[in-house]
Structure formats: C-alpha cells, structure tokens
C-alpha cells in the first residue's frame, strides 16, 4: 500500500506502529500510577510493556513485509525505518526485561520506569521515520526527555541524580545547537524537509553556501553529542555510570542506534553533496572518538564505565560508516546496530546480575575468578566482550559487524582506507580492556571470601542466553542479517515528487 501523507488519516496510518506504542505507553502510564509502588505492580507493568512492544514489533513486521510506501512527506515509510524500529524495540524489550528484575534490587519500584522506556522508544521510532527536521527535533526531544528521567530513576541514589542532571543540562545545551542548526539550514534552503534540502542543494547550488554550512556544522554538533563523539562525549561515562544498569544498556544500545539512524538519514538524504565540508570534520570526529574512547577505556576500573567508553568507541566506528556517506554505510550501521545491541545487552545482563544490591558500580576486580564459580556466566560475558571487540567466531556477529563497517568505509568513494586502518589499530587497544575483563574472570583465582554472585533471575538469564545465542549464531550464519541490512539500507535521495514552488532563498 502507499500512504498519501497529505491526507491526515493516511498519515496516521503511516505512523501506525508508533501510535500503537505511544497509546500503549499512555495507557500503561495510567496503570502504573493507579497503584502504589510495589514489586508486583512494577513487574506487571513491565510485562505489559513488553507485551506492547511485542505488539508493536508485530505491526512493524507487518508493515515491513507488506511493502508499504508513502508519498513524499514529513515521514518516511521505508525499510530503513522498520529495520531501525526493530533494533529499538529489541533494545527496549531487553532493557525492560532486565529492569523488571534489577530495578527492585536497586530499590527502584516505580512502575513508570518501564513506561518511560516505551516513551523513549516511541521517540526513537519517530526519529527513524523522520523525513523532516521538525520531526527530527520532536523525536529527539521525546526520546531525550524520557531518558533524562530514566537516568534519574533511582531517587535514593545521588549518582543517579547527578547523572540525570548532567545529561539533562548538557543534553538541553546541545539541543540548542541542534535547533540552531536546523534554523540555519532552514534559512539557507527554505525548507525543513530532508529530501527537499538535498534537492535544493543541487538545484540552487548551495554547496558553498555559508549559512547552510554553518547550519550543517551546528547540526553535526547536536548529532555528535547524541552519539557521544569526542569531544562531545564527556557526559556519557558519567551518565552511563550513574544510570540504573538496564537504562545504561538501553542508552548504549538503543539511544545510540536512534541517534545514528537519524544521522544516517539526514546525511545521506540531505547533505550527501556537502562532503567537501563535512568529510574532514567527521573524519576527525571518528578518529578522535576511536582513539580517545579506547585509550581512556584502558584506564577504567569499573565495568559500567568501561562499557560506557566502549560505547563511545563504537560510536566512533560507526562514524566511519557515516563518513562513507553511502547507502552501504547505512546497511553496515543496521548490521552493526543489531550485533552491538545484542552484545551490549548480553554484557549488561551480566553486569546487572553481578551488581550488588544498593550499589551502582561493579568494579572489574569483582569479576576475579568468576569462571570457577559461574563458568557459563563468565563464558557468556566473554562472548559479549569479544563481540564488542569484533572477534570472529568467538565474538560471533561482532566480527561481521566490524567487517561490514570496514567494507563500507573502504568502498566509499571518499577514500577512507586510513580511517579503516586507524579503526583496526584502535581495536587492538580495545583488546586491552575487553580482554582484561576476560582475563580477570578466567585467569585470576577467586578471592578468598568473595561473595557468591546471586543466581541469574529468569528474564535476565533469558536475555543473556538469547543475546549470546544470537551473537554466536549470527557469527556463523550472518547471511540473513546481512541481506536484511542491505535490503533495508537507505537509498541516496532520489529527486522525487513535485518540488514546492518556492522562490530561491535570498540570503541575508
């Protein structure tokens, strides 16, 4: 079917899954508020949230398989959107499943926590669908505001509050740049429609238009903040550390994926021709992110913080795919997002189960000799870490994710071979900290009198098993995932639809 986005109900139809999720979230918000905080209630709301997510997924799958398209408009109805949606929804479901069990341990009994994830996810889905900078802005804010709250969920923890404050202040600050960027792009092109911007850059030869370029620069700042690219990354470690573990996982995987989804769409559909301006900055952003992230991660003694830096690093790798600026880059991103989401949630499932009640942080040394007491947990965690490292077979899909990104970077007409080399060299540094954890688990003795880590709760265990299983499976049979990513990649914006008859912009 083809939605005509000019017709309101058809626009609603095109937003079907998003609406299902939002309506479900609103209903559940009411349900959550209905009863006083209790473990049973949050569990119920959590399970219901997962149900909503599953329903949304089903709808996404239905839309995706029915081959729905839409007329040009403010939202996209394409494979990229559905593919990205699936990643967000998987992340959300995993975060909620872990959260159901780990939140009470952190004395978070608010049932709203799960609902907020639904809201954030709705924001992401909107982001993925956005074909207008206005929608981009809305999506970013819907997502961000929910996540600000999620970070500060643990009212009893000063760390949680501090993380929330930092994220909020800096997030809002960066929103200012993003918004200003949108304004300048709008001023230069006269439109906020993403494909139209691309079109007008051609038709009006705006490649060297300074207002446009400054606008793009400001947009880039906003995006770079969201994907935690160096030097706009400084919030990330603190916030990841302060946030409750499932939220950290959610931020590392889904929020980052959403930010990249929008990044790719805007860059490929709007600014593809401006690479003369953005290639060098993104190149340096990617390089700095890989180098700084990896190097600083080496010095970390806390698992969550280490994983936070790891998440920054992966942002750097994906920036290489952005720099490629090709549809293949977006395909690589989709593949990467799946592998990375699985690995991240697997890892955080372990971290959450290892975190002692009332503590946010688990030191790496807490994992000493884990193998001797919990061999499978240690093996599972190692596989996730190796996936993050991008190691073949043992790291499963993580290797092919990196392979795909490298492939995208190296086939790009933009000659990114040096960046690819930098990527692999910094990967070696990353082995230093990923393997450090593997090493403490397997090669150090369990300290005398170390407390037994509690048995994995069922949902967490399910998440871990599913993630590890999929990582390994996709590491041997990545075919389907690769095809899926390639089919759902973005296409460089075709000049389509009636061009709005607007006079050429007169620059001030």
């Amino acid at each position, binding site marked *: 079917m083809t939605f005509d986005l000019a017709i309101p109900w058809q626009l609603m139809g095109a937003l079907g899954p998003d609406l299902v999720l939002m309506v479900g979230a609103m209903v559940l918000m009411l349900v959550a508020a209905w009863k006083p905080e209790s473990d049973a209630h949050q569990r119920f709301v959590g399970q219901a949230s997962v149900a909503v997510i599953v329903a949304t997924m089903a709808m996404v799958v239905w839309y995706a398989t029915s081959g729905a398209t839409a007329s040009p408009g403010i939202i996209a109805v394409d494979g990229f959107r559905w593919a990205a949606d699936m990643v967000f929804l998987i992340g959300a479901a995993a975060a909620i499943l872990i959260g159901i069990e780990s939140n009470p341990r952190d004395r978070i009994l608010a049932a709203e926590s799960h609902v907020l994830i639904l809201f954030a996810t709705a924001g992401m889905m909107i982001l993925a669908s956005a074909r207008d900078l206005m929608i981009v802005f809305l999506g970013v804010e819907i997502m961000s505001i929910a996540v600000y709250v999620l970070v500060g969920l643990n009212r009893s923890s000063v760390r949680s509050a501090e993380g929330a404050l930092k994220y909020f202040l*800096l997030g809002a600050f960066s929103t200012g740049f993003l918004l200003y960027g949108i304004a300048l792009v709008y001023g230069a092109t006269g439109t906020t429609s993403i494909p139209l911007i691309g079109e007008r850059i051609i038709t009006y030869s705006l490649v060297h238009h300074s207002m446009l*370029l400054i606008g793009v620069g*400001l947009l880039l700042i906003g995006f770079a903040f969201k994907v935690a690219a160096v*030097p706009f990354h*400084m919030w990330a470690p603190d916030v990841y550390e302060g946030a409750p573990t499932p939220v950290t996982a959610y931020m590392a995987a889904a929020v980052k994926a959403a930010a990249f989804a929008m990044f790719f769409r805007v860059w490929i559909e709007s600014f593809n021709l401006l690479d003369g301006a953005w290639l060098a900055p993104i190149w340096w952003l990617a390089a700095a992110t890989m180098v700084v992230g990896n190097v600083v991660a*080496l*010095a970390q003694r806390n698992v969550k913080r280490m994983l936070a830096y790891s998440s920054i690093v992966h942002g750097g790798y994906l920036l290489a795919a952005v720099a490629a600026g090709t549809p293949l880059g977006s395909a690589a991103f989709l593949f990467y997002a799946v592998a990375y989401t699985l690995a991240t949630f697997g890892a955080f499932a372990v971290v959450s189960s290892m975190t002692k009640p009332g503590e946010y942080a688990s030191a790496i040394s807490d994992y000493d000799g884990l193998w001797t007491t919990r061999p499978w947990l240690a093996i599972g965690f190692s596989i996730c870490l190796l996936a993050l490292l991008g190691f073949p077979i043992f790291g499963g899909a993580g290797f092919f994710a990196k392979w795909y990104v490298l492939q995208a970077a190296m086939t790009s007409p933009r000659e990114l071979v040096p960046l690819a080399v930098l990527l692999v060299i910094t990967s070696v540094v990353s082995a*230093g900290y990923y393997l450090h954890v593997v090493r403490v688990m397997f090669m150090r003795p369990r300290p005398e009198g170390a407390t037994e880590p509690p048995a994995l709760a069922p949902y967490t265990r399910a998440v871990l098993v599913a993630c590890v299983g999929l990582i390994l499976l996709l590491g041997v049979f990545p075919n389907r995932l690769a095809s899926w990513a390639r089919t759902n990649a973005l296409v460089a914006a075709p000049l389509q639809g009636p061009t709005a008859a607007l006079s050429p912009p007169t620059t001030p």
Partner: protein
Amino acid sequence: MLESTHPLADTAARFVWWLPTLPLIGFLINGALSVYASAKLGPADPSSDHGHEAHGHSANAHHQPHAADAGHDGHDTPIRHRFAAIASVVGPGVMVVAFGLALATFFAMRGVEMHSPYVNTLFSWLPVGALQVDAALQLDGLSMVMVLVITGIGMLIHLFSVGYMQDDPGYPRYFAYLNLFVFFMLLLVLGANYVVTFVGWEGVGLCSYLLIGFWFSEQANADAGKKAFIVNRIGDFGFMVAMFMLFAHLGTLDYTTIAAKADQLPAGGIVVTAICLFLFLGCAGKSAQIPLFVWLPDAMAGPTPVSALIHAATMVTAGVFLVARSSMLFSIAPVASLTVALVGAVTALFAATIGLKQWDIKKVLAYSTVSQLGYMFIGVGVGAYTAGVFHLVTHAFFKALLFLGSGSVIYAMHRAYHATHHHGDDAQDMRNMGGLKKYMPATWALMWIATLAIAGVPPFSGFFSKDEILGAAFARAHGSTLADATLLGLPGSTVLYIVWVLGLASALLTAIYMTRMMLYTFHGPNRTGAANTPHLAEAPWIMTGPLVVLGVLSLVGGWLNLPAVITDLMPIGPSGTLEHWLEPVVGEATARVAGTGTHLSASTEEVLIGFAVAIAIAGIVIAKMRLKPEVLVSKSASLPSNGIQRVLEHKWFVDEAYDATLVKPTYAISKSVLWTGIDVGLIDTLLVNGSAALTRFLGWMGGQLQSGRVGTYAWMLVLGALLLLRAFARAS
C-alpha cells in the same frame, strides 16, 4: 661410469655399504644394552658414587681412574658391567668383520684396473631441483687407504679398549660411541659427495664430543667435549660455505662431477681460492690447525684409546683427507695451497714448542699430534698429496702406538695408585713416573719404536713419510704453480722455503720433546712413590697385543712408499707403491701443481735426506744431553716454572687469549647488549611495555580531564563546536 658396468661391480666392493653398516649395528646393540641397563637397573653410570674429593688442576687427567678402578669404594674386586661380555664381543667383533670386508675389498681393487671410482648409490637423499644429492659411497684408492686405516687401527684400538675399559660402569656405552664413531668415519671417507662426507664429518665430531665427555660427571670433561664440538663447528662453517660455493658455481656436490668440472672455474681465481680456503677452514677445525687447534689438547680428557683412535689416527686426519679428496680444486688454487702449507708449517712448529714443556704425557702426545698434522698439511699444501696421505698412514701407526702405550702406562699407574689408595696423585703426569722401563719393558720397547718413527729416524716409518713431505716442499719451490703464485706479497718460492725451514725446525723439536717424554717416563729413577712402585706392572695381553701389531707397522710402514732414490741405492722393496695406488685420484692434481722441472736430482735428494736424518738424531742427542731425569721431582714437589718455560707450559696462553677476546665478549655482548639491552630493554620495556604504559598513561590523563564537572564538559563541548564550525566555515 655406471655402477653396474664398473669393474668392481661384481666384487666384494658391492658390499661397500656394509662397511659403515657393521659398526652402526654394533652401535645399536651396544647403545640398547647401555640404555636398557641404566634405565632398568638404576643409575650405573660412571662416578655415580665416586667422591670427587680431589679435582686438582689437571681435571682432564683426573678421571682416568674410572677406566681401571670403578667401584673402588672399599671393594677391591671391581664390578664389571652386567652386559660387559656382550659388549666385548659386539664392539670389537663388528670391527673385525669390517676389517675383513675392507681387506676383501682391497684385494678386489688390486685385481682390477680402475679409471674411475666405484660409486655405490644407495638412495636419493636430497633431490631438490638442480640440487641432487645421493646417499652414495665411493670407493677409490684414497678411500680404500682410509678405510683400511680406520678399520684396521680401529679394530686394534677396540681390542685394546676391552682391557683398558674393562671395569668401567659405562662399558657398553663406550663401545656404542666407539662403534658409532667408526660408522661416521667410514661415511666420511666413503662419501661420494661433499654432503655425505659432511655427514660423517659432523658425525665424528659428535662422537668425539660424546667420547671426550665420556666421564661427563666431571665438569672439565664435559667442557672439553663441548669445546671440541664448538671449535669443530667453526670449521664446519667453512666446510658448509665451501659446499654452497661449489653448488652455486658448479651446480653439483659429487666428487666425480666436481673433479671433471673443476676446470670450469678460472684457475687461481677468486672463486676457487675462496672455496679452497673455506674448505681448509673446515680442515683446520677438524685437524686442529692454527687457529682452531685449541680443542685437541683438551680432548685428552677422554679415555686414552679414544685419544688414540679419534684424536690421533683417524678423525683428526680427516682434514688432510679432505684436501686430498679436493685435490682437483686445490691444484688450481695455488694461493689456497700455499696457505695450507704455511698454516701447516706454522702449526707444526708452534705445537712442537708447546710439546717441549708439557708434563702430562697425553698432552705431549696431543701437541705432537697437532704438530704432525701440520706436517701432513705441508704435504697436501705443496701438492704432494700422496706424501700427505702417506704421513697420515704412518702417523696413524706410530701415534696410535704412542697413545696406546701411554694408555698402558697410565693404566699401570692407576693400578698402582689404586692399590695404595693414592687417588690424589696425577697418573698422567710424567713427573710422577720415571724408570718405568723396569716394570713395563714391552711397552718401553714399543714406544721407543714409535718415538724413533715420529722423530724421523730411518728406517722407521715416519722417516720416509716426513722426508717425502720435506722433499716435496723443497722441490716445489721451483717451477711449480705454487712457486709462481704470491701469498701475502711473498713469492711462492719464498713461502715454500720458509715452510721447508719450519718443517725442519719442528722435526728437530719433535725429536727433542719425544725423547724428553721417553726419558721422563721410562728412564731415570722412579718418582711414583715407594709405596706404589711394587704395583706397577705390564698391562694384560689384550692391551699389549695391539701394541705389538702397531709396533711392527710403525717399523715397516715406510715400505708402503719407498722413495726411488733409496730403492735405487739399496733394493729393499718396490718404490712408490702408495703413489701408484693413489695415482688415479691425485695424480692429475699432483702433476698440475708440480708443473715443470720440479724433479730434484738424486744428489739433492740424498743431501736433503741426510740433512733430515741428522736433524732427527741431533734432536735425540740434544734431549739426551740436556735433560736430566735424575733431578726431576714429582709433581707435588715441583715449583711453578717461569719465563718462556711458563709461556710454553701454558701453551702460549692461546686459550686465555681466545677466552678474553672472543668467548667472554660474545657472552657479555649477548647478555648485556642483545638480551637485557635490546630485547628486554629496548624492544620489550621501551617499545612494547612502553607503548602500553604510554597508552595507559594517556588514558589516565583522559580520565583526569573527565573531571566530573558539568562546566568542564560544556567548555569542551563548545571548544569542539568552535573547531567544527571553523572547519565548516572554511569549506564555504
């Protein structure tokens, strides 16, 4: 020539591969016995329970006791090895059979006219493209001579060992090693190409290593074995490089092909000279020539029969053999040949000077061996290949005799010391001997035969061979290719005269030190100590028997190659037998070196002979006059010597010099510069760990920047923003 059509094809020669195989079988049997016994029956190795109470300085001598008196702790009846009987049969037995086969082959060869060597190809060993190396054996005059010496003298020494080693706890192991040595030695001389020879070459080095360190529980013995192997390997380096060059320039390593193709190399050119010099480096290692002679004296740490077989009669002469084997190459490389001759001459004199002041009877013989090997190199160096080989053979006779005789003496000394429990005294030091003639008359007489032979007194064998060498050196000084070449700026003829003079000088010294040895050992008063004297006696027949055989050979060995000038004077036998025998092998090369007009007139030859004889006799007389065995005191009572005597006694301090200039610096550089400096310091600490530490430090710095303050973060954000915007602004 095809193997099957060769005149030797249907004779005993087709069993030539049995020659090395027989001792190999002996090795396997004895080795199995040895390992089985020690693994199954517990440690029964030598010196396992000997107190090492008195090591003394002559550690190399110290271990002789075990030869004769293992298990002396309170037991006066020695315990023989459980498998001693089997080993006594197998060890010498295979040698007897091998010698028989060698004789059969020899007679087969005498019966046919041979123009090319008989090559028996066993299998293709290293087939790699252009490089085709076969495991093949080659029979010709030269290898036949060597085979006879090796199996014949080897057999005698095996028999001698049955007595000498009878009570050693490592008895089967000893025979295993000895058999293995013979195997490799036969491979060395029978090899049909350089590579097979090299297998034997290194193999004999290995056996030498094992036998020198036979009593390995004494560090000095193990040291000596190791030193021998390592110094030999320096020589092997040269051998290998020579092979590489041969392959690179001639594309083959077969003796026959190389002999045929040698003319392709420009005569006197750099290539053939280099090949020969590298080969000679190998020979210098194996045959203990300057600068690689240092291992041989130390090698006396091994059992005395080993010294006789390996370090006198056979292995150390392999270098001479190799030069003769490569005569086609050396004959077109006059500079290399001159070098060989000169090094041989210098070594002969140098070693002789050291021999003058040694007290250990075996050390005297060791330096004597070095000196005589120098003689042989003079021979092969001046292109008188037959003379070199001739001296090799006679030397094998009389030096084996000398060593075995000294073995008998030492054996007797040990018996005596053992009987009186004087384990602190050195049984090999001549200062502890004296007057042994009375107790060991047979040994005395036989050793005098050998001494006269080595001194070059007619009609003993050494006279003929030595004279032939000196005569050849003198003769080559005119008209030969050598005389026309120049070495180190000196004309070849001058060099050859120098060689000749050095040869004469060392002949004089040889006569002196050998007489000295005999005087101190057998003459004068006895210094063994009154308590020990009654226990001194002749060794059993199994040991004395071989001595007698060797004595006869030392006496008549000269008849192998009587010079024409003598047979012309007195018809005592056929002249030049060996020369005719070796003619197909070295004749062409000899003729090429000799060139024109190098034949000496009979009168000149007679004068030279007279001169040589006079010198030999003069040496004996000088020694007899100057040395007073009567005033010598036993070792424990001796004072350290000084001046030139001290220098000679310490062998010109060559070992110390090598140690200070080569060994220690290499070790120190390897340890401090290469290992702790480059490996641990530079690469590992600085580069590897350093970069890791630097990365970690940068990470820590980055972490410090992450101050936790929102203000900092905002500043960073804005700074980054400004940088980015600047980049975009530039692009517009």
